């Protein structure tokens, strides 16, 4: 038991310094700062009472952790209680040695003397401290990087403005000689993307679309947000290459408002199923919103080749997306409807030898549709 009489208190020790076997070292119980976890080891005291008393001192941050052995019990072995206590202590020491080191090196000398309860408390306090520090660091990092307030100015809109911009998104501008103003707000586009998600979900539900790998909601959200964010980023990149005057927020806003046409088209054609109607809507409504976006981009780009690249890409992606949405998310309905558009006969009706003349194609599709629904 190397007695280092002049050793300073554990708190002044650097944490990496291993605490030597130090019978006077107070266990780190009560150190509010875990600045010296290494030195917190080997804490033991001969007298629980002194320990508890000194504990209080330690908590208030005063006093050294060195216990004077003189104040320990001098009834060593003389009373029945002390015998019991020492026996208990030795048993606990054995247990702790068997368990090995735990915590921040409190048992440097393997003889952690203290109440079992105390050690539990110590561990809990260490955990508590670590949790506090971790939480503080995490919240600091969070407030630094995930600061949602930078997006705040883009959501400052009035209903009138949103309505006006929605209507404007369908009206192509005439003047392309000087840059057209793009509203840099994100509320309208975000709501339009969510509306598109809802319409897609509705379409998938009415047509009993089954998505095998994934969920309906996940697919719809992934498609719509993927389109909005992905195509915006791609167009922004192209605009950077073609030297167009547009920022990322403006691009997001432009493309988002362009989805208004998609929403209208899909809402109508998912409920009224006519192919020709869809194509008309695709050309007219989709075309109008594309023309608007293209005109705005053209007004902000210089040079024929650049204009062509940019606008061609945007028009193609925009129109093709609408086609994709219509056909990928509603196709089951078409098969059934083809049979319904034939002569109006329920498939299971028993009509002996009076089968009306229907074409083979209709019969085949009926059979296929029934097989699908079974």
């Amino acid at each position, binding site marked *: 038991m190397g007695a280092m009489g002049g050793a300073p208190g554990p708190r002044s020790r650097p944490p990496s310094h291993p605490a030597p076997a130090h019978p006077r070292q107070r266990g780190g119980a009560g150190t509010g700062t875990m600045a010296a976890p290494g030195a917190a080891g080997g804490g033991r005291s001969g007298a629980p009472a002194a320990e508890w008393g000194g504990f209080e001192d330690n908590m208030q941050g005063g006093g050294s952790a060195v216990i004077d052995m003189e104040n320990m019990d001098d009834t060593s072995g003389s009373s029945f209680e002390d015998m019991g206590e020492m026996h208990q202590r030795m048993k606990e020491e054995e247990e702790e040695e068997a368990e090995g080191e735990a915590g921040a090196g409190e048992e440097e000398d393997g003889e952690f003397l203290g109440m079992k*309860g105390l050690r539990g408390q110590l561990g809990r306090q260490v955990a*508590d401290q670590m949790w506090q520090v971790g939480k503080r660091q995490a919240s600091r990092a969070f407030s630094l990087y995930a600061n949602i307030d930078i997006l705040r100015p883009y959501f400052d809109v*009035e*209903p009138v403005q949103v309505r006006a911009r929605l209507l404007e998104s369908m009206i192509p501008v005439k003047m392309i000689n000087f840059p057209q103003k793009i509203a840099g707000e994100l509320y309208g586009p975000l709501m339009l993307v969510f509306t598109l998600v809802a319409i897609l979900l509705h379409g998938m539900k009415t047509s009993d679309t089954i998505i095998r790998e994934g969920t309906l909601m996940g697919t719809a959200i992934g498609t719509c947000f993927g389109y909005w964010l992905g195509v915006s980023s791609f167009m922004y990149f192209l605009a950077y290459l073609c030297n167009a005057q547009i920022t990322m927020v403006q691009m997001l806003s432009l493309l988002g408002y362009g989805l208004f046409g998609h929403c209208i088209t899909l809402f109508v054609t998912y409920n009224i199923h006519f192919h020709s109607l869809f194509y008309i809507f695709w050309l007219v409504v989709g075309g109008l919103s594309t023309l608007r976006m293209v005109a705005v981009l053209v007004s902000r780009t210089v040079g024929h080749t650049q204009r062509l690249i940019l606008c061609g890409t945007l028009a193609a992606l925009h129109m093709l997306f609408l086609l994709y949405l219509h056909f990928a998310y509603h196709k089951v309905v078409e098969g059934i409807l083809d049979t319904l558009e034939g002569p109006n006969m329920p498939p299971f009706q028993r009509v002996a030898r009076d089968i009306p003349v229907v074409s083979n194609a209709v019969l085949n599709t009926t059979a296929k549709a029934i097989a699908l629904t079974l």
Partner: protein
Amino acid sequence: RPYGGYEYPQQGGFVPPDMMQQQQPYTGQIYQPTQGYTPASAQSFYGSNFEDEPPLLEELGINFDHIWQKTLTVLHPLKVADGNIMNETDLAGPMVFCLAFGATLLLAGKIQFGYVYGISAIGCLGMFCLLNLMSMTGVSFGCVASVLGYCLLPMILLSSFAIVFSLQGVMGIILTAGIIGWCSFSASKIFISALAMEGQQLLVAYPCALLYGVFALISVF
């Protein structure tokens, strides 16, 4: 110091030092959670005075009268909402309503508790972000969850209607649209009165309508 034998603290529990400085007595209010009311101190509290313990409902923060008041506010769409009613974030009512919604769906043969849970969680998160961006003062997640949960009540009417009648006809569509409008109108009314966002009721109502539309989609199909 004299050696006094085993002197365990009276309460039988170890109170960490920093807790002892911060511990406040339970004041009996159900409106705000008391700070530092950790299980450790609760145990010691329990140990020391059993008679002073607050009644269970008060300790859990469930106040039936307030729940009833908020329910009435939701059910009368034209009643002006008081901005203070959402100061206490009460999740007991919304939890009951979500379970009731799931139960009525169950009665209609759709076991979709998972969907209800997932959609409400994602929806609350989305509304929380949006409202934080749109309002001058921030809003807490508990408040958003509480308001959206209470305004789910008309949707329960819709799904109970769907037990008996199919909602896939024209009447069903009209009823569904009406109920969605009712839910989102109530929710936006409470939000703008609690957050003082005048003139933006439609802007808040629309995302709520989308969220309740998804719930309606579960009920109908």
